[in-house]
């Protein structure tokens, strides 16, 4: 069965003072090929830990990750990752960054050059192919990061707040780009974000996680991502449903945050 299964993942690690942290408890999830899942939650709910486990950077204490019926252990080229920022290689130009994956796989330039050029056109960097990455703005750098991930043609793309460091306008443009790439490439995407609006706009499925221990609190299926493809995202935000959902989820996260605050105050 093609797709990504997250099976009963638990993550518990010891602290130097003898106590331990239950970062994740029994998280299970079944993602079909081509689904876009956005993950929301208050800080400390384990969403980045979950993503690192899926990417293979962390080994879970229990459970397993199954990709296309094969257990996935350790990082590999099938699970591409887009980071918030600072993951580009400054010592390479834009084209070298984007072609990094194919080059490391030992492919000849003739095999990847066309695809890399095409991807740079798709993300709107046709005029910046020969630049060094440190000459680009933050938004452009994230476009390079997206293109670099796509050039490697992974089955799953993991995004750790990829738009978190961008200004509001650039962010909105990039949200449109992510939707477009998702529809065009049919990739399975897990997107972690802090922004409820972004999670609603991009997520076909939306996961709200709760902290202490990190677990799935609630899951939604949403129509907005499909609406937003090729459309003005601001129109989607005006939908009455959108506003309702946003208030509901915001309230949910607010309650969790207050509970955490209350608990720390009690313990202090």
């Amino acid at each position, binding site marked *: 069965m093609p797709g990504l299964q997250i099976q009963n993942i638990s993550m518990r690690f010891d602290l130097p003072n003898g106590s331990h942290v239950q970062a994740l408890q029994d998280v299970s999830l079944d993602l079909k090929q081509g689904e876009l899942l956005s993950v929301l939650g208050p800080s400390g709910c384990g969403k980045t830990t979950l993503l690192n486990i899926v990417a*293979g950077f962390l080994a879970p204490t229990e459970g397993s990750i199954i990709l296309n019926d094969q257990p996935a252990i350790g*990082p590999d*080229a099938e699970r591409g990752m887009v*980071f918030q920022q*600072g*993951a580009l*290689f400054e010592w390479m130009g834009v084209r070298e960054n984007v072609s990094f*994956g194919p080059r490391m796989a030992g492919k000849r330039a003739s095999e990847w050059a066309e695809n890399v050029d095409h991807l740079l056109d798709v993300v709107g960097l046709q005029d910046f192919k020969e630049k060094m990455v*440190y000459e680009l703005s933050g938004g452009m750098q994230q476009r390079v990061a997206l293109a670099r991930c796509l050039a490697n043609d*992974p089955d799953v793309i993991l995004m750790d707040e990829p738009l978190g460091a961008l200004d509001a306008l650039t962010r909105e443009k990039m949200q449109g780009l992510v939707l477009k790439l998702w529809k065009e490439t049919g990739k399975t995407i897990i997107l972690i974000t802090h922004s409820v609006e972004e999670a609603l706009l991009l997520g076909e499925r939306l996961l709200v996680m709760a902290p202490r221990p990190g677990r799935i609190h609630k899951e939604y299926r949403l129509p907005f991502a499909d609406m937003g493809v090729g459309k003005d995202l601001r129109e989607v935000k005006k939908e009455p449903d959108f506003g309702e959902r946003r208030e509901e989820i915001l309230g949910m996260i607010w309650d969790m945050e207050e509970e955490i605050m209350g608990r720390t105050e009690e313990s202090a």
Partner: protein
Amino acid sequence: MGQIISDLSGELAQLFVSILSALPAIIGYLALIFLFLFLWGIVKKRLTPTQDYTSLKTVTFGDESTVVSDKAASIISVVLIFVIWGAFTGTSWLPNFLHAPGPFIGQDTFTYTVETEDGTRDDATVTLVSHRAGELPETPEITPGDGIAKDDVIVVQAYRTKLLSWDANDDVTRSEGAKIVAIDGREITRETDVETGFARVALTDKGTLNIEPGKGWQMESIWLPAPDSVVSRLMSVSRDGYQNVTLAEHLSYSLFRVIVGFFLGALIGIPMGYAMGLSNWFRGWFDPIVEFMRPVPPLALIPLVIIWAGIGEQGKIILIFLAALWIMAIAARSGVSGVAITKVHAAYSLGASKMQIMRHVIVPNSLPEIFTGARVAMGVCWGTVVAAELVAAEKGIGKMIVAASKFQDTDIVLMGIILIGIIGFGIDVLMRMAEKWLVPWKGRV
């Protein structure tokens, strides 16, 4: 312990006295800085004002970005050093009115008064001729004159003193109880000297006169040679060499040691730093060694290196190697540790192998740190090689200045120091250019 403390406080007191005596010079120099600031301000007002973004800022005090090195100040400052240097050495490069008063050169006379045992007094004239080093003026002919005291002639080199046995030609002698009681009519004793205006005259214990022509404010060339004599020395030494070794040979030997020693230090130090940055075991293994050796100044190793390796090239190259090794190891270690984990993660999830991550991520990421380390190491190596040559060497720029100092060839010493400074600066400029060319992304991430 109490003895040490009292000795050290004595040293401190002496130091304080020296600082106090230098205070007028320091204050004078500060006054010059402000004087030129004022003068340049007047000149600047007459020039067309630029109206760039910075000059339109109203808040400049405290805004670090508005402080840029003033080119005019740099030029004036460097020129002033040469002017001061020239003024106090009487260089031919400066017009005479800029010279500080020089030593007395020429001929003048003073009189001395002799008193015999029975109280009679008589005057005689001394003709003093003072000349520069290396010149030998003719002794003027004089008539001895009347009376019991006869006139004398004395020839003294500038900055030197000479004893005058005034009674050699007189009718009375010191052994008969005659003594000098006054110079130019002013009383002289063993405690009080007399300044004649062109010389200082003192009475010795034996009753002779100690004559010192006026020194003026200029430095004797053995203390501080004039800039023109340093330049002419540079010409002659680079043409003919010094003590049968050419300047090019001295410099080549020093540079050879630095380059070979630094290269070997980097060759071992960088892999060592990488190993420390990439493996717990190697970090644990080398940490105590590196952390202990790093604070030991390479100069402190000179005696041991001489004992072990002698004064040949090997010893000096070992020393430079050790000076570069720890710096390069630490630079490489922090270069590796400084790699952002997101970059490594990104490379893994793009399918790179460990070797590929080393080659394409870790090494390029550590280059800026390694270059910073190399610049520091080069500076330290250059300083170390000169110091090592001061202690023991046959050739080398440090050897040249220490040999010159033994023969009091101060102009060569000064020339060597200036060359050492210029070469050290040149090395740093070259390193910075290489850095700009090889790691253009440095500081732009």
